[in-house]
Structures are given as structure tokens and as C-alpha cells.
């Protein structure tokens, strides 16, 4: 509750400051948090790796964009349809790939991500190929257009906070215990009456739902989408966000997303070489900070303090 209040205060501060730059940054953060949360539920809590999560974000974005342009329906309806589609797709992918474990699962999800990305590039009749789709209508609420950063800011964060609260409820519920049991030991979970495969598929579907929602909102927010934001690089970035937060931890996901969004800004002068930084960071976090960057830094500072003889600090 305290964390929620702090977040609300920070958000209100940003909103009232009227800074276009900050508002934009925060909207992007909210939209990235959705898929990252989904990935954390799947990887952190249920122990199933996915290296193709960007594909679900892309599916949500392209789903609503194609639908809204083809049917002229209200964007709200097409978002709902796209999210439903992504959820279903994620469930089906789960049905297919959860016969695999470990490296094989990672490879299969990676391949799935690549296939979907290639699909968006090559299926020009529907997706517009590399040129992408433009002219996606902005969202409207009670006749008020949510086209600008400031206008979509409240919506993005309300959705994001609801998603955070739901995820937090879930991991604390009996189903959350079942997820953690499956993550640690499927044989034990099954011996306790938990059906591991069914649970994994459902969490995959939920995870896809979160990712699809993020993608769909993103499409209507920008008004233009192209394949490149949904490539494997983005999947890895999502992985990094979740890893920075220590995989399992709903609020620490938010930290991971902020961290990556802010470093992206700092790294802009590097152009496309920023990937190098993310790669190195991911390796470091995976090896030395399995419980997230903050935990790793805390332990490092304790170790340093102890070495320097600052006993009081290490305590």
C-alpha cells in the first residue's frame, strides 16, 4: 500500500510538472511495464523461460491496428479483441512449447518470436511490411481525444496500476503458491495435486494477455507501428527488465522497467550499439545478481564495507 501511495505521488508530480519529456518517458514506462509484468509472472513465479515475449506485444499491436483499419470499429473494441487474440495465441503456444524444458523451451520461444517478427515484415498485404501501418486512430474517451502524451498518461498508468495490483493478488493467492511450486519442482507440484502443464499454459495465456494489452495500447498511442520494435532485441530487453528486478517481484519489475527506460535515454548517443550495454548488463545481473540489481548492489556494498572494516555499515 505504501509503495502504491509513493508511486501515485510520483506520478502526480510528473503529471502536474507539465514536462513533456518526463510525461512521455512515463507513458512509455507504463506501456513496457505490462509485458514485463507478464514475463515476470511466467518466468519469475512459474519458472518458465520465454525469449519471444516481444511477439505477443507485437501481436497485440498489429491485432488491434489491422482490425481497426479493416472494420472501422471503436478502438476500445479492437483492443479487447486483440488482447483476446493474444491470450488465445499464448495459450496455444504454451500448449505447443511446454512439452519442452530448459534450453529447449528457450529455443522454441526464441524461434516463435523470430517467426512472428518475420511474419510482420513479410506479410505485406496485411502488415504493410517494413513500412508498417500508419494512421491508427487515437483512443477517445467521452469525446476527448487521448492522442497527446498528457492525455494518455492517466489511462496508461491506471491500466498499469490495475495490472500490478491484479498480479500482486495472484502471486499472493493459492494459485500463486501453485505457481511457485511448479517453478521449483514440477514432480513435487504434481504430487500435491497441482497439474503443472495446465497451470503453465494458463499463466502463459495470462502473460500473453498482459503483453498484448501493452502492445495494443502502444499502437493507438503512437498511431503508427512497424515490425522493428517487436523484434528479438525487445524480447531480450524485456528479459533484462525482469532480471534487473530479480525475476520474481511485482514491484521490482517496475524498477527494472524504469531502469531500462532511463538508461535507454542516456545511451541514445550510442545509437544501435546500446545493445552491447544491455547484453553485458544482462550477463552481469544473471551471474552475480540472481535476486535483482538492487539486491546485488546491497550485497556488494555490505561486502565492501566488511572488507574496509566498517563493521557498523555491514550490519
Amino acid at each position: 500500500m505504501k509503495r502504491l501511495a509513493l508511486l501515485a505521488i510520483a506520478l502526480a508530480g510528473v503529471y502536474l510538472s507539465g514536462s513533456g519529456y518526463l510525461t512521455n518517458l512515463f507513458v512509455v514506462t507504463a506501456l513496457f511495464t505490462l509485458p514485463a509484468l507478464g514475463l515476470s509472472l511466467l518466468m519469475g513465479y512459474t519458472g518458465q523461460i520465454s525469449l519471444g515475449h516481444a511477439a505477443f506485444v507485437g501481436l497485440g499491436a498489429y491485432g488491434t491496428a489491422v482490425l481497426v483499419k479493416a472494420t472501422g470499429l471503436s478502438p476500445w473494441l479492437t483492443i479487447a479483441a486483440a488482447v483476446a487474440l493474444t491470450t488465445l495465441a499464448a495459450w496455444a503456444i504454451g500448449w505447443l512449447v511446454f512439452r519442452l524444458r530448459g534450453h529447449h523451451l528457450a529455443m522454441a520461444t526464441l524461434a516463435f518470436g523470430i517467426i512472428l517478427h518475420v511474419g510482420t515484415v513479410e506479410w505485406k498485404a496485411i502488415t504493410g511490411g517494413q513500412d508498417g501501418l500508419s494512421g491508427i486512430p487515437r483512443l477517445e474517451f467521452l469525446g476527448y481525444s487521448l492522442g497527446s502524451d498528457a492525455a494518455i498518461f492517466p489511462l496508461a498508468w491506471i491500466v498499469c496500476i490495475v495490472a500490478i495490483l491484479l498480479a500482486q493478488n495472484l502471486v499472493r493467492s493459492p494459485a500463486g503458491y501453485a505457481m511457485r511450486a511448479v517453478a521449483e519442482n514440477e514432480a513435487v507440484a504434481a504430487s500435491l495435486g497441482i497439474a503443472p502443464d495446465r497451470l503453465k499454459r494458463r499463466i502463459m495465456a495470462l502473460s500473453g494477455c498482459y503483453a498484448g494489452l501493452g502492445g495494443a495500447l502502444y499502437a493507438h498511442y503512437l498511431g503508427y507501428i512497424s515490425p522493428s520494435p517487436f523484434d528479438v532485441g525487445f524480447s531480450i530487453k524485456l528479459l533484462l527488465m525482469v532480471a534487473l528486478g530479480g525475476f520474481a517481484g511485482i514491484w521490482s519489475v517496475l524498477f527494472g522497467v524504469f531502469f531500462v527506460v532511463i538508461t535507454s535515454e542516456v545511451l541514445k548517443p550510442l545509437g544501435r550499439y546500446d545493445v552491447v550495454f544491455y547484453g553485458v548488463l544482462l550477463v552481469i545481473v544473471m551471474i552475480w545478481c540472481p535476486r535483482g540489481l538492487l539486491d546485488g548492489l546491497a550485497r556488494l556494498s555490505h561486502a565492501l564495507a566488511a572488507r574496509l572494516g566498517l563493521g557498523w555499515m555491514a550490519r
Partner: protein
Amino acid sequence: MSDVLLCIRGVSVRFGGLQALDDVSFDVRQDEILALIGPNGAGKSTLLNVVSGALEPDAGEILLGGRRLNGMRAEEVNALGLARTFQGAEVLRGMSVRENVMTAGAARCGAGIGFGLVGVGRAATALDKLRRSADRCLEAVGLEALAETPASTLTAGQQRLLAIGRALGTDAQLLILDEPGAGLNATEKAQLARVITRLRDAGKTVVFVEHDLALVGRLAERIVVLDHGKVIAAGEPDAVRSDPKVIEAYLGATEIAPGAALEANDEGNPVLAIESLVVRYGGAAAVDGASLAVAAGEIVAIVGANGAGKTTLLNAIAGSVRPASGRVLYQGRDISGLASADRVCAGLSLAPEGRQLFGSLSVEDNLLIGRYGRRRGAGLRELLVAGHGEVQATRAAINMVYGLFPKLRERASQAAATLSGGEGQMLAIGRALMNRPSLLLLDEPSFGLAPQATREILEGLPRLTESGVAVLLVEQNARAALQVSSRAYVLANGRVVAQGRSRDLLHDPEIARAYLGWKGEQVPRPGLRAVR
């Protein structure tokens, strides 16, 4: 006659060349404590896996309260009221003790992902109920004071109890416990026995697999004995205990050709000397101050019941576990600081328990891998382009192995996975010999083998020692090991409790009794309840 709760009828399971279970049939009655015992590799764990739904039998059927379990998945079997624990306790280390037990009720509390997301209403009440029922289960196993503790910090004994508490948390009628006493000290075992008795009194039926026969004698109301996948005895403890077939299964009945055993040769410099070695796993000492010596060209056996610390002792010599204290001297040199790979290069080869062959590689390739240590030790150049001398030496080593086990020559290009158990063991020994060791560590060569195959392998050992190789043999089949070795040490609870010439030990009746452990502590058994 009580009602039958679990009925096992003609169950058979085959793994490749191994008949793990062979037409196994027995009943578990309502409200009883039944022990399932048998030597290593008898098929106990396989049977547990079949009953709990983790493994589909090739033949036969399993009925729980009249319902057929065949084809059901583990979670479905559990939903019908059967909960099992695992050999390694397998607590969920990322959770607290209470959360471990709460997890057990998660599947049947009626609040799935949908309710979980909403978080109020059903999920909240379900969570409350889970917490209360978890606390009751923890009380039943005496862990209520540790409810908030992270499960990873529990001692081995507490983890076993937690695993039982967690199984209770599924509301199962039938509890199947896989080696609940493994790794526990005497106090913890007494606690375990109290808990199991209390559960039975509370209306649960308990089946447990156990190697500690003293614990079995104390707890079990009926015993089923498995050996080589077959039920060899079943019934009241006293009858089972005195059954010659059971004693034979535990001590082994393999007769080795007379004259095979060499004279004891404990003079001169030992190849290997161990001084007061202590190895700890967590808090418990698996090897507790053992000392022994092996001289060149000698076969020395280490015998003892399961869990006595035999394999741990061997692993400490091979370098794969680190001793807490004590010294390991190889050819007079302390090798405590040497990594296990370097010990192999120094001439100390291990043929590990369970053989550990490279199944997809051919027999000859497996042998060549065994040569790696020597070749690498001769320098990097030998690895890249082997010199003439090394090629010859490798060839000679392979021929030596083929000479020892001619069957391997016939199978040279066959994949190791397709070998029979006996041939696999020959290959494991051959691979260890490729380095031309001066000491061969041999861990349970008779594991899972028929008497004929055991004999064939053990009778090959004296020929091996003629070339000066010393053999340290760890065997569960004590009878065979004592016949093939010149000297032996008897291990119990990590300590050497007897040693001497194998010939003398073989005929010492006290050894057999101590080894079997039937006597145990003289604690009154929980009385059989009156038949209703």
C-alpha cells in the same frame, strides 16, 4: 481382515535391458503401517513411481479404493487421496515452512487463477483456510514452531518431517513415504517414528520405503520385501525377519569360486591410507572418523548397510566430496588439495555407482575417454597429436581391458546404452582401468545385476590385481565382496565397526546381525491395533 485400500496386481516395468519390476502384487490395508524394503536396485522407487502416477507400468494394474490408477497423471492420483514424498525430501526451498504446506492445499481450495487475480472473496477465504490447515499439519509433524522459517534452513530431519507434513496437507488418506529416515540421527528417527504412529492413529494409512531396518522393525505392522523387481516375502515383521530369502537378499548369496580370494597383504607401504576422515552433509556426519589402508595388489572390501557412508567415503577418496577433517594419503602423499581430475591422472580411478557410461558413444569410445587423464597428463601436445608411444600404450590398455572382459571386444562398436547390466559394469571398470591406475575404486559393481553377472565381474578382479593394481571395493552384496577380497572393513553410521580378514568376517554371525541392523534399539513397537 481389514479393508484393502491399495491393491497392486501383477505390475511389471522394464527399462531397456533391466526388468525393474516383475509381476509385483500385494495389498495395502486400511489403517496400517506397511514397510517396503529391499536392497539397492530392488525396484522400490520404481514401484513408488508407478503407484503415484509418475510412471506407467508395462503390465498390471493399481487400484486405490477400487479405482483404477493406470493412465492417471500424478496430480490426478493425488486428487484421489494418495500423497507421496520423495527420496530427497524435496522441500520447496524458496518458501517458508508454512508456505510449503499451504502449497499442498492450493490445488483443491477452489480458488484458481481467476479468483487469484481478483484477490478478495474466494481467494482470500481460501488462503485463510489454507493457512489454518497448514498449521494443523505442521502440528501433526511437530514443526509448528518453525512455521515462519525459510524451508531451506531446516536440518535434513526437519526437511523429512516437512515433506510428510506437506503430504498431509493434501488431505490424502494414503501416505507413501520414500526413505523418510534417510540421513536422520537417532533423535530425529525417534521423532519420525512418533509422527508416523500418530498419523496412523489419526486414521491415515502409511506405506514407507526404508533402508534402516531397525526403524522398520520398530514401526511396520507388515513388511513387503522386494528384490530384483520381485516380491520375495510379505507379512508380519517376525516372519519376514527370519525368512532366509530376505537375509540372502540383503547379504547376498553369490558364491565366488573358491581360491579366488588372495592372501591378506597388509605389510609394506600402503597405496592408500585414510586417517580419521570426517565428511559432513549439512549438519550430519556421513563419514565419521573412518581410517583404513589398502596395500598394492590387494583387494579390500568396504561393506555395510545402505546409508552407512560407503559411497561418501569412496567419493572423498576420489575427490568429488570435500572432507571436513582427516587425511587421505595416496602413495604416502596427502592428496587433500588435489582436484578429482588430478587424482585420476595420479592413478586413482573410480568406477562409479550406477556405472555412469556415455550411452550414445560406442564401447571403444567410452574406453578411449577413460584414457583422457593419462594423455592430458603427458602434455597438451599428446592431446592434439598423440605420439607413437601414447598410441601404443592406449592400444595396449584397450587390449588389456578386452583380455579381462572378452565380451567387450565383441561389442566394441556397439553403443554403450545397448549393453546389458553386466556388460555395462564391465565397461565401467574397463574405462576406469584405461588410465592404468594403481588403485581402482569400485562402487557397488553388483548394483542391479543378477547373481551370474555379479560372479562374472567379481571373479575378474583377482586377475586384475596380478598386475599390481589395488582394488577398494564398496559392496552391498557383502557375501560376494567378502569372498573376493582379502581384507574388509565393516562400516555403520559412518564409522568402521569391524575389520579384519574377509574369510573371518564372512563366518562371523555377529557381523551379519549388526549389518542387517534388525536388532536396533530395544524400543517397544507401537502395538498392533485390535482388529475390528
